[in-house]
Each structure stands twice: as C-alpha cells, then as structure tokens.
C-alpha cells in the first residue's frame, strides 16, 4: 500500500520540477536565462570530471583543456564549415573522447598526484597552443572566434515573454543536460559503474575480480573528456565567443571545485557544482572590489566546513535524519 503511494508522490514531484523548469525562463529576464544556461553547461562539464575523479578516482587538474577543445571544435565547425549548432555537439564529444583516450592511455602509468600534475600541464599549455601561428586560420589566434547566436526556430510566447534566442538556448541546454545526465546515470549505476568504483576503491582487488584495469581506466578518461568537451561546445554556443584567454588553468580548477562542492561521486551534485561556480564569483564581486578572490576563498572554506561531503552529501544527511525521525 505504501510503496505505490510513494511512487505516486515521486511522479508528482518529478512532474512539478519538470513543469517549473519549463516555465522558469519566462519568469526571468534574458540575462538571467543566460546565466541559467551557463549553470547547465558547467553542470555537464562537472559531471564529466566527476565520472573520472569521483567514480574512478583519477585526478585531473586539466579538464578545462577538454572544455576548450570542445568549445573550439564547435566554434570552428560553425564559423568555417557552417555546420548547424546542434550538430557540433556530437562532434565535440567525439573529438574530446579521442583526445581523452590518447591522453588517458599514457596516463595509466601515472598514479594519483602525478596524473594530477600531468593534466595540470595540459591545462597550462592549451591557451598558448590555441594561439599557435600555424593553426591561426582555424582558431582565430588571440582574437578568438565570434559566433552568432542561434535564433529560435519558431515563435512562441508565455506570460507575454517571447521565446528569445536565450530562452530557446535554455531549452536546448536543458534537453542536452537531461540527456547527458541520463546517459551518465545509465552508465554508472550498472556493471560499468561498479567496475569504475571498484578500481577506485581497490585496484588490485578489482583486477583479481577480472576487471580489465587499463581498458576501464582509459575508457573512463575518454568518456569524461567527451562529456566535458560537449559542455565546452554548448558553452561556446551560449556565450557566442571563444578565445584562448577564456580557457585558462583557472577554469580547470573551478571545475574541480564544482565537483567537490556538489559532492564527489554524485550525479545530481554536478548541478549544485554548476550553480556554485556560476554564482559565487558574482557574489564575491558584489561584496568586495578589493579582494573578490579572497572572499571567494572564504566562501569556499565556509561551505566545506558546513558541508564536508558537498551539497549532495549534506542533503543526504538531512534526508536520513528526517526518515529516522518519521514514524514507521
């Protein structure tokens, strides 16, 4: 009796959330919608990094590089080859998946902090590589590439607010984000996910159980890079501009911050990570012009102190406490 009732409530809650998400962009100005889009983009990028770091235990300080590769793939395909924006996403995934495999394979020999350093080097190198003369024709050099925002394919309005380019992109981003989260969820809750976690927790035991360590680790790297690269492509479409200075090493660090803040090895946590890296710098900037970075640090430390296992960890704790208190 109680089981179907519970499922009933879950469905209702899910439907309410979905409805809220669909109506949301029409309640805010375009600029706010643009920020929501960035949150979704960062959430996908963080999800990608979380597959590698959270689930598989490989540290990467260089995922900003994959984000950049994805962004440039989209920008070049759109500006030079006139590909429609939606078609650039699978391309960005594929390109970054392959680059991820190529980097992930030698990275097998690097454990823990050595891998972190190697990927960090990648993040440092990418902005400079993007300025390289021989590929300037494609990358636009220091100036980067200015893109046009995709126009909504049909006219529509709700609450007197038209479906603007930003609102259309919101639905596009929401669809892509939902798809990527579903993909990640399907991938990680089954055999593959268990194998990844087993490798993270005890590689020797995992090998003994017959898990092909090099294969899984390399595939995890490739998939993770693919997710983050796709997010980069989505980000390029949303911002409508790419340049080497958009993808400095700070981006890689912020993505890692997003993973930790949202909750390591938590799929929905990526959303909270995205919210954090999008909004907290703005809050710090609004509070102080003299030391926004220091303030950001203070906020980060405060959050880690209050929620040592990330936002999702905190939510889970609250949930567990509520269930313990509830009768029955």
């Amino acid at each position, binding site marked *: 009796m109680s089981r179907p009732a519970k499922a009933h409530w879950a469905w209702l809650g899910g439907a309410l959330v979905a409805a809220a998400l669909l109506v949301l962009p029409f309640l805010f100005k*375009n*600029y706010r919608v*643009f920020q929501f889009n960035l949150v979704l983009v960062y959430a996908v990028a963080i999800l990608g990094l979380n597959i590698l770091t959270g689930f598989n235990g490989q540290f990467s300080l260089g995922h900003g590089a994959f984000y950049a590769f994805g962004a440039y793939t989209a920008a070049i395909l759109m500006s030079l080859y006139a590909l429609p924006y939606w078609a650039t996403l699978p391309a960005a995934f594929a390109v970054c998946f392959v680059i991820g495999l190529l980097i992930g394979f030698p990275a097998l020999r690097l454990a823990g902090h050595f891998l972190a350093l190697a990927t960090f080097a990648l993040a440092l190198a990418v902005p400079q590589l993007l300025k*390289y003369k021989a590929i300037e024709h494609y990358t636009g050099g220091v*100036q980067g590439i*200015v893109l046009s925002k995709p126009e909504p394919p049909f006219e529509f309005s709700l609450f007197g607010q038209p479906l603007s380019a930003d609102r259309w992109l919101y639905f596009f981003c929401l669809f892509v984000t939902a798809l990527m989260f579903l993909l990640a969820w399907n991938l990680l809750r089954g055999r593959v996910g268990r194998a990844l976690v087993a490798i993270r927790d005890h590689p020797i035991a995992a090998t003994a159980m017959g898990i092909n360590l090099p294969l899984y680790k390399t595939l995890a790297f490739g998939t993770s890079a693919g997710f983050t690269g796709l997010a980069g492509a989505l980000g390029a479409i949303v911002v409508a501009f790419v*340049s080497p200075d*958009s993808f400095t090493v700070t981006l890689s660090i912020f993505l890692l911050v997003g993973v930790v803040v949202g909750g390591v090895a938590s799929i929905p946590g990526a959303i909270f990570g995205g919210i954090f890296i999008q909004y907290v710098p703005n809050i710090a*900037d609004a509070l102080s*012009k003299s030391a926004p970075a220091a303030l950001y640090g203070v906020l980060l430390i405060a959050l880690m102190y209050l929620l040592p296992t990330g936002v999702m960890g905190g939510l889970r704790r609250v949930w567990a406490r509520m269930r313990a208190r509830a009768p029955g």
Partner: protein
Amino acid sequence: MKIEFLIPSLACALALASSAPALAQKKYDAGANDKEIVIGAIHPYSGPASAYGAIGKAIGAYLDKVNAEGGINGRKIRYIALDDGYNPAKTVEQARKLVEQDEVLLVFNPLGTAANTAIQKYMNDKKVPHLFLSSGATKWGDPKNFPWTMGWQPNYQSEAKIYAQHILETKPNAKIAVLYQNDDYGKDYLKGFEDGLGDKAKALIVSKVSYEVTDPTIDSQILTLKATGADVFFNITTPKFAAQAIKKMAEAGWKPTHYLNNVSTSVGAVLTPAGLDNSKDILTAQYIKDPTDPQFQKGKEWDDYVAWFKKYNVGANLNDGFNVYGYTVAQGLVQVLKAAGDNLTHANVMKQAASLDMTLPMLLPGVNVKTAADDYFPIERQQLARFDGKTWVLFGKVYGP
C-alpha cells in the same frame, strides 16, 4: 452646454500637457532620468591581470568626486563596477548584466582586446554605447561597421606612425630592422609602421623578423637582425621579450637607434632586468603623465590630482600610473555626459563622444582628445621620450594629427 464647455478646456489641457515636455526637451533612454545616470564598467579585479583593477577603482573614485560636487547637470552618477577576471566569457556575462539587468546608459572602459572583441558585436546589436575601451588595438575606431564602439588611448598603428615619422625626419636613409610578436598586436604595430613610412617602407626596412609568444628566447632573431647591418631597430615586443632583446643586443654589441613600443616601457618590469645601462638611449612614445616623473609633480594639475587622490582614491598607490589613466578616462566620460545635457539617449552619447575637442590635465602638454563622426580615435598625439639610464625624458615636438 456642459459638454461644449468641456471640449475646448480638454483640448487646452491636452495642448498644455503635450507642450510641457517639449519645453524642457528632456530625452532619456534606459539608464538615465531626472535624478541619475547609470554607468556600467568591467575591469579585472581578480585573476591574472588584477593589477589593472586599479583603473576601475580610480574611475569610481573620480565619479565619487563628481557626485560630491553636485553631479552632472544636476544628476548623480551611479557607477556599477563589475569584475570579469580577465576572462572574455565572463566579460560577455557582465556586459549582458549591465545592459539587460542594470539597464545602463553606457558600458565604459572594458579592459583587454579579447574581452572587448567578445562583446563588440553584442553591444552594437543592442545599440548601447561601448565607450572608451582600455585596449590599444586599432580596430576600435571603425564607426562604419561598429558605430557604438569607440576606443580611447593611442592605438598601436598611430604610435608606430610616430616612430616612422621620426625616422623619416632624422634618418631618411636608415636601414631599419623590425622584430615583432607574431599576433594581432604585433601585426597592428607593423602595419602602422609601414603605413607611416609610406612609399619608402620597402626601401628602408631591410629585415622583418617575428617570434612566437611561446618561444623561450629571441636570441637568434636578434643575431639575424644584427647581421643585416641595420642602424635603426623597431622593437615590437611584450615585456619579457623586450627585456631579452635589450640584453642580447648589448651582449652582441649591436647599437642601432632603438625604438621600443610603449607596451614594454616599464622601468621596473623591463629595463631594470635588461640592465639600465643597456637600456640607455632607447626611444619610445608617451601620451600621459608619469606620476613618478618629478617634472610633473608640481603645478595646479598635479595638486588637483593629489587632492583627489588623498580624498577619494584612498588606499591606492600614488606611483601607479593606472590611477592617472583611470582619472583621465573618467574625465573624458564626464565631458561627454556634460555635453549630452538633458538629451541622455544612447544615440546622443555616441554623438557627443564623436564631437570631442579638448585637453585633459594629466595628458602630456600638447596631447588632446579629438574625435569626429568618422574619427573614433580620441587620443592620437604622442611625444617621444628617451631613456637616460634612470627615467624616460621627453623631448622634441608632439607628433600626431
């Protein structure tokens, strides 16, 4: 009876109502009203280029002074300063916040070439002034394609033209060697230099060599240039490479007349590491007063500057030239807003910005701010300076249009 009486009086009232605004002739776009003018600015207060944040703070401090003295035409200025951390993607977000959320009258002095490239199309689509940018690229003076974007400081091409003119005047038969960074910045300078030399460019320039930002050193380039036997050297390099070039030239014993682009003239960051003796007699062009130069530390202009600094720009470093820059560009903005009067529309802001002809206290004597509908380059004049082993010493006439 009643109705007949009403109609003429209504008409009268309507006529009065419609004539009232016509008399005052006040016109506003988003970002201005009877009480205030909203200005948005974007600077890097965090991130790798946060030293430039001083500019944004100095602008705010100058506008505080203007407000304390009664504002502009009776209106207070509300200055919204945002941080982009020198990340162009963030600049886009902040520009959109200023235009769509805060509804500013104009976006002022965003810093960096990439940052401004990222928002130029957006600002022009929105038809909101993108005014007095902190970047030396020449592309900001393109009123035909981007009528809502206007630069501020001398652009790279006009600076290079000054060196060309000086060479033509002093050494008409020079053999010129050029070293340039292989990107838009370097090519911008090179184009201005070749344009400045005109027909003679082909004959006079004996060698052009480039380097990449990623190169570890430029020693080999210097040796190549030396081997050409050039007696004039135009050095288009960023600080690290400028220091390397000066040092290597001294080691190799190459002593041409040396023109160094304004980008790399910091005594502390370039000339000291390169060796002050090695840097002697290098030439460059300047347009703004150096707050550490004793010759400018006197007179009413300096006193006003220091008085403002002590009262409003508390906590900043008086030796930091970025404050002079912020102070001066803010004065340019105030002039534009004053001239706009009660017609505070986006279009009129650009119109007034494109009809400036003035001097400002902390620009070098003889350097002016002059624009026209087809001239979106506010500051173009510069004066040459020679390094005497300790500081830059200005000499000769003021060059430029």
